[in-house]
């Protein structure tokens, strides 16, 4: 690709927004909530993409967008009628445009091959009669000026011009002193463009009117290059004879439509008692204001706020140790500081949070593509599109989610005939939802297909030697076999979901984000895959533990229970291994210090604290630590950037006393690595290191 090009990047960012608008518009058309403006909005989106693409000579996009918008133009002019066939073509075109833009961004041309067939289907809507007309119009489309700020309000003001709102209420003495309001207003008009409204509310009944008195006040909007002092100068000689209120208006708060021709409205005869102009609120609701910020800057801020939290914890600890009396007011100020720091942290984290909507939209494309290739009829229902998740999390679940959606269409939903035979709607439903629940985001994918074929899963697992032939597994254990590496149920590897990656890859991707996956399935009714993800990758709730004189942190989310065992709960197996008996279940015990190579032999477990955890592929087991002190939120500091991955350790954090504590990873802790064998792989720091990673 060419050198970094910010304008080009901006174009693609705008494309994302426009494509989102396009998808929105099409789904409005689909579910019948479309308004008159919908088709226009769709047209504008496609047209803007074409315009921008033209500027960067992305001919594939321009050519396709041109055909697309031509059909849309016919639609908005009512020359063709929207039916399900056309809608399908439009959706297909939208997907294709999406792919073309993606190609443009990555400098590939994977989507080009599809263009011809989609163009052909678009062209069927360009009847002969209108075709000629289109050709005539094509110049109009081709010659549009390119603007990169279509979504932003067009600023008409010349630079340096501001609008002032002036309230001018003369006292009775003003006229008596020989001043003339009209001259003042004329003088204002010389400064710029002015519009005037006369306030007549205080004019009394004509019979009571003292015609030497002045009952009027003026409400003016002045758009000018002059500053406030210059305006005050106009009123210099009447300052004491009137109430004068001058305020500078920001664009949003302007209540006047500023006429370009000032004189037309400048009727300042003081006998005129009619309002010259009504105030009029701006008609269009202002678009949600957004700010594009370099992600690096946000990440730097996230890092600094992490420091702030650590620093705050440290100050708290020092003050605690200093035993300052509470009457000094320090503790309460400290608490306020704590709250502020937390608020700043939440605020900064929310900058990184983004609605999951674009990802869901991408999934509806995936469904359509998979549907077409598998000849199934599927409807994608989404819920919770507004759910916000950390940007990195969104980026990193895109592939796993795509895979799962493909699976749901390809394996989950039955072919139409089978569905009808089973008394179901011929069109299958896949429901994609996102919700927040207690510091986590839950994304679930449910289909109303046949459900998991457990007999087949078990058979496959046995034939592949993943489980012993005589194993007796519960339903959920069978379901979880899907996540085993080297498992694939499809007898024929289909083009869609069988791309050499199984659910184990999906699960690993989710686990690496600190998430969890689960399956529920009911035969004949369908299956649900749930993904539980942390809201942010920057902080976690941890339990502070002592391991061989070191302070370490274990994520609370992975601890099911803490146990102080008695001798009766412990059973030895051989000389080194121990089991913990808990509610009739025996689970293996791993000594954290030994696993990490910090101690040669486990010490007596009955003097230790056992943490019951559950890890993937191992079920439940107990981790032995020397002591347990506290629960707190810790800022995650990646180790990968400067060092490398360490088995059993997921990251590090900095404690209140400035010392580093390692964060334990129960999933990898049990894979015992021999001390000294593992060397850091430091030459390949992860480019996409977590935003919390140390700089």
């Amino acid at each position, binding site marked *: 690709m060419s050198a970094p090009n910010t304008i080009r990047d901006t174009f693609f960012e705008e494309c994302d927004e426009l494509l989102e608008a396009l998808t929105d518009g099409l789904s409005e058309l689909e579910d019948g909530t479309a308004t008159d403006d919908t088709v226009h909005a769709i047209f504008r989106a496609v047209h803007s993409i074409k315009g921008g693409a033209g500027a960067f000579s992305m001919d594939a996009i321009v050519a396709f967008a041109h055909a697309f918008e031509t059909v849309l133009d016919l639609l908005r002019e009512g020359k063709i009628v929207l039916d399900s066939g056309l809608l399908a073509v439009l959706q297909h075109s939208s997907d294709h445009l999406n792919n073309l833009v993606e190609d443009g961004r990555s400098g590939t041309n994977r989507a080009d091959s599809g263009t011809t067939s989609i163009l052909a289907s678009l062209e069927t809507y360009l009847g002969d009669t209108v075709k000629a007309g289109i050709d005539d119009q094509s110049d109009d489309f081709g010659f549009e000026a390119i603007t990169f700020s279509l979504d932003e309000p067009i600023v008409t003001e010349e630079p340096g011009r501001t609008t002032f709102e002036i309230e001018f209420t003369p006292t009775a003495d003003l006229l008596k002193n020989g001043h003339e309001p009209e001259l003042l207003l004329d003088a204002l008009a010389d400064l710029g463009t002015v519009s005037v409204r006369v306030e007549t509310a205080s004019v009394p009944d004509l019979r009571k009117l003292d015609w030497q008195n002045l009952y009027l006040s003026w409400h003016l909007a002045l758009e000018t290059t002059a500053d406030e002092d210059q305006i005050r100068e106009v009123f210099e000689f009447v300052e004491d004879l009137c109430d004068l209120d001058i305020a500078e208006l920001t664009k949003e708060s302007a209540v006047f439509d500023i006429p370009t021709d000032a004189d037309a409205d400048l009727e300042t005869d003081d006998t005129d008692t009619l309002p010259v102009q009504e105030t009029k609120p701006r008609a269009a609701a202002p678009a949600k204001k957004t700010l594009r910020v370099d992600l690096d800057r946000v990440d730097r801020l996230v890092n600094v706020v992490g420091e702030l939290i650590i620093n705050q914890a440290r100050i708290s600890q020092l003050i605690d140790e200093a035993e300052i009396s509470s009457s000094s007011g320090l503790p309460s100020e400290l608490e306020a500081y704590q709250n502020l720091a937390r608020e700043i942290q939440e605020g900064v984290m929310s900058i990184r949070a983004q609605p999951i909507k674009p990802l869901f939209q991408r999934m509806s494309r995936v469904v359509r593509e998979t549907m077409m290739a598998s000849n199934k009829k599927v409807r994608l229902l989404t819920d919770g599109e507004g759910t916000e998740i950390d940007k990195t999390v969104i980026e990193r679940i895109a592939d796993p989610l795509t895979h799962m959606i493909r699976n749901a269409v390809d394996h989950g939903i039955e072919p139409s005939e089978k569905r009808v035979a089973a008394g179901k709607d011929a069109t299958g439903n896949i429901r994609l939802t996102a919700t927040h629940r207690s510091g986590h985001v839950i994304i679930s994918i449910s289909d109303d297909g046949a459900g998991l074929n457990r007999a087949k899963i078990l058979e496959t697992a046995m034939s592949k030697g993943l489980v012993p032939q005589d194993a007796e597994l519960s339903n959920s254990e069978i379901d979880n076999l899907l996540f085993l590496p080297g498992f694939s149920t499809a007898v024929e590897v289909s083009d869609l979901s069988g791309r050499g990656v199984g659910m184990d890859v999906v699960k690993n991707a989710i686990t690496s984000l600190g998430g969890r996956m689960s399956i529920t399935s009911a035969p004949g009714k369908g299956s649900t895959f749930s993904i539980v993800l942390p809201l942010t990758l920057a902080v976690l709730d941890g339990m502070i533990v002592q391991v061989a004189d070191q302070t370490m942190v274990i994520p609370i989310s992975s601890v099911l229970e803490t146990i102080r065992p008695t001798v009766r709960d412990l059973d030895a197996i051989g000389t080194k291994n121990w089991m913990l008996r808990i509610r009739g279940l025996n689970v293996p015990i791993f000594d954290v210090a030994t696993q990490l190579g910090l101690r040669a032999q486990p010490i007596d477990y009955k003097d230790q604290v056992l943490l019951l955890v559950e890890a993937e592929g191992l079920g439940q087991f107990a981790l032995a630590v020397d002591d347990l002190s506290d629960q707190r939120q810790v800022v995650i500091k990646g180790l990968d950037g400067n*060092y490398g991955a360490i088995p059993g*350790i997921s990251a590090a954090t900095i404690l209140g006393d400035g010392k*580093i504590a390692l964060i334990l990873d129960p999933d990898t802790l049990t894979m015992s690595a*021999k*001390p000294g064998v593992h060397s*850091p792989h430091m030459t390949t*720091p992860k480019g996409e290191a977590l935003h919390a990673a140390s700089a």
Partner: protein
Amino acid sequence: MQQALEQPDVIGSEFVSFFVGDQSFCLEISQIREIRRWSPATVLPHAPDYVLGVINLRGSVIPVFDLSARLGFGKLTPDERNVIIIAAIGDQMIGMLVDSVSEILSLDPDAIQPRPNIGDEEVISYIQGFASVDDDITRLIDLEAILSPSSKLVAE
């Protein structure tokens, strides 16, 4: 002579020299972020013996290497007199425990001789070249080799 210097871009003219195992080593000054007194590091599990652990450098978690162990002089028992040199390559930061820092040298890049092709001692693979200073020589550390898990001689 010149072509043997693999990264001419990191060769400036000012170098910080320091001692490891009674021998003088140096690093180009722009690679050094700061020099700080030894403070205990948090031990990393499963780490090679030359990795002392990680320290908190103003909120960043930085690994500290025992340069003496890394260069094959044997493990140093750190005390208050030892210093940690914080160096950076790209985004990566690393601390190196050395015996002591001596001085800032101005060296003509042309005066730096390439790595000698002698022996297979570990230290050879971690130096880029050397230069004469008064009656002694100072050895220019190859930071990337220090960072990489495998020795450079093997890689070549």
